[in-house]
């Protein structure tokens, strides 16, 4: 379907049409920042902030919740164990391009050897309305380098660009087309709308300059060369190993699995929850041996996952340049700065 136009006056109507048979989640203000929250009331709907700059947590939380039940059990034995694969039809409204790329990364990671039915069940009933950005939210972002300023070719249903009094709406799937058909407010985009969209993206590209001193395609190789660098120790001296960076990362998917007992002390649930390779015990084994005991090896592991490992395993970026890890680091550690510094390391070696 060709791009459509939705007048801003019709936006509420559009959201209402989505709410009819979906849970709708959208960006709203949360303190001085923004968070994706469920739209449950007319007040919520009025609080949707399609002008948000950056959400605290990425929309990952709807596909891979912070806590998720894998199995329920009736007692100690394995006889009464039931898988609990749950998914609510959901529309995620206002997903920025870099987060669309991050979802593509999660899709790839969770599809592999073997597929994860818990993620895939949620993903299958989730529709995504993307949202174009005009500029960087802060100095930690570097989407231009990671090639995530524009939406990926697929993996979203609609993609909205703000043209002032109207939304330019690209259609990425049949589900997206159905969303358009259900709401009366849409009309085909005309040539001046197309021109305005082109101008928007041009202005975005001009506003969002590259920040790495090299082409990001060299990032995995630069990281490989920096493995023995003193840089990791230098940066890790500031690191508290708190795990904030991994909690807010849109592509982190490591987890812990634990049993939660009910009040009868017999039945309960096996739950997986987000975990962090930055926590000291993450790579500890029974008996106390810890294979990434020091903060520098943990920090290096995270940065390598972001810049190299995930890309090599999934073919999708492990870092989309969103800058959340740096925005929320209590020690002010910036992955952009680290990526910049490894170039200097490589230069020093020559």
């Amino acid at each position, binding site marked *: 379907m060709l791009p459509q136009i939705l007048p801003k006056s019709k936006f509420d109507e559009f959201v209402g049409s989505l709410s009819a*048979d979906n849970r709708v989640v959208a960006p709203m203000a949360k303190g001085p920042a923004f968070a994706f929250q469920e739209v449950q009331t007319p007040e919520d709907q009025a609080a949707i902030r399609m002008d948000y700059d950056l959400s605290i947590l990425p929309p990952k939380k709807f596909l891979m919740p912070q806590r998720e039940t894998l199995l329920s059990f009736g007692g100690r034995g394995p006889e009464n164990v039931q898988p609990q*694969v749950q998914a609510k039809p959901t529309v995620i409204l206002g997903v920025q391009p870099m987060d669309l790329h991050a979802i593509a990364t999660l899709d790839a990671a969770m599809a592999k050897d073997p597929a994860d039915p818990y993620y895939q069940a949620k993903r299958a009933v989730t529709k995504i309305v993307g949202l174009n950005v005009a500029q960087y939210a802060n100095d930690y972002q570097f989407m231009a380098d990671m090639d995530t300023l524009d939406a990926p070719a697929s993996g979203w249903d609609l993609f909205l660009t703000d043209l002032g009094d109207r939304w330019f709406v690209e259609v990425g799937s049949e589900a997206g087309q159905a969303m358009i058909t259900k709401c009366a407010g849409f009309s085909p985009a005309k040539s001046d709308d197309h021109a305005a969209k082109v101008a928007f993206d041009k202005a975005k590209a001009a506003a969002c300059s590259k920040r790495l001193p090299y082409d990001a395609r060299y990032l995995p190789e630069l990281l490989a060369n920096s493995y023995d660098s003193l840089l990791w120790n230098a940066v890790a001296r500031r690191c508290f190993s708190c795990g904030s960076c991994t909690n807010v990362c849109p592509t982190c998917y490591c987890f812990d699995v634990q049993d939660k007992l009910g009040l009868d002390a017999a039945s309960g649930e096996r739950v997986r929850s987000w975990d962090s390779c930055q926590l000291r015990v*993450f790579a500890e084994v029974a008996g106390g041996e810890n294979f990434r005991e020091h903060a520098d090896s943990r920090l290096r592991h995270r940065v390598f996952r972001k810049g190299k490992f995930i890309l090599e395993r999934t073919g999708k970026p492990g870092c989309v340049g969103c800058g959340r890890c740096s925005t929320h680091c209590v020690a002010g550690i910036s992955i952009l700065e680290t990526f910049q510094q490894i170039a200097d390391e490589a230069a020093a070696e020559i």
Partner: protein
Amino acid sequence: MTMTMSNPASASPYLPRVATVAEACKFTPKEAWFRFEFADGQGIQYAAGQFMEVSVFGVGEAPISICSAPGKRGDLEMCIRAVGDVTNALHTLQVGQTVGLRGAFGNGFDMDKVAGKDLLFVAGGLGLAPCRSFILDALNHREKFRNVTILYGARTPADLLFTKDLEAWAQRKDSTFLMTVDRGDENWKGNTGVITTLFRKMPKVDPANTAAFIIGPPIMFKFAVLEALAMGLRKTSIYCSLERRMKCGLGKCGHCQIRNVYVCQEGPIFNYAEVMRLREGI
């Protein structure tokens, strides 16, 4: 409007199979041996070096090496050290009780890859459990291999595991078995000293044509590898099993990841050249 969708039971890779404790034996206060039979009668096929995720519901799940001879069978054995919540709970299991088992996970090792070679097994402490799977496979197909040498070290005589096996191996004429303890007691007549001291007491091997399986705590591995390399063994012919705390076994949770390798799928059996390349392996 919201609705909840449930997938069929078989869809979850986290759903364990039911297995019954068919036999159990306390080897030491900390280490117990179990033989599990699958309740569904479907059996299992596994290779030496593979592991299972063992569940006690309400406590959790832990990755445990299989210690019985590999193949297609209706049961499997594990030797479990009580070090954490799950393993302590497993130690309370009685014959007839059930556990949940997922697996087998990991790459495992096909002993046919080293057919025609001299075999050297070096097992330290609980490392004898995964190593036993390799040893039993080799001894069950003894004709496929040339000289077979088994070295085993434990801390004290009271820590020795699989003592029936040790006696049987010591009596075999077609292979060499040597063991040592770090510290003997008044009744101990055998070797004392760390396991590397056995390298000087064992028959000579043809280093270019020997495969070594070195499984034990990291500190033992480091010194035993030095001995093996000094004997002239090739780095690619020295195998080890890396211990990690796999939470999923499915290449996802990240706990077993070494650089870009998920030990639960690409390991836990690696040759020494690979371990060196991983850097964070041991």
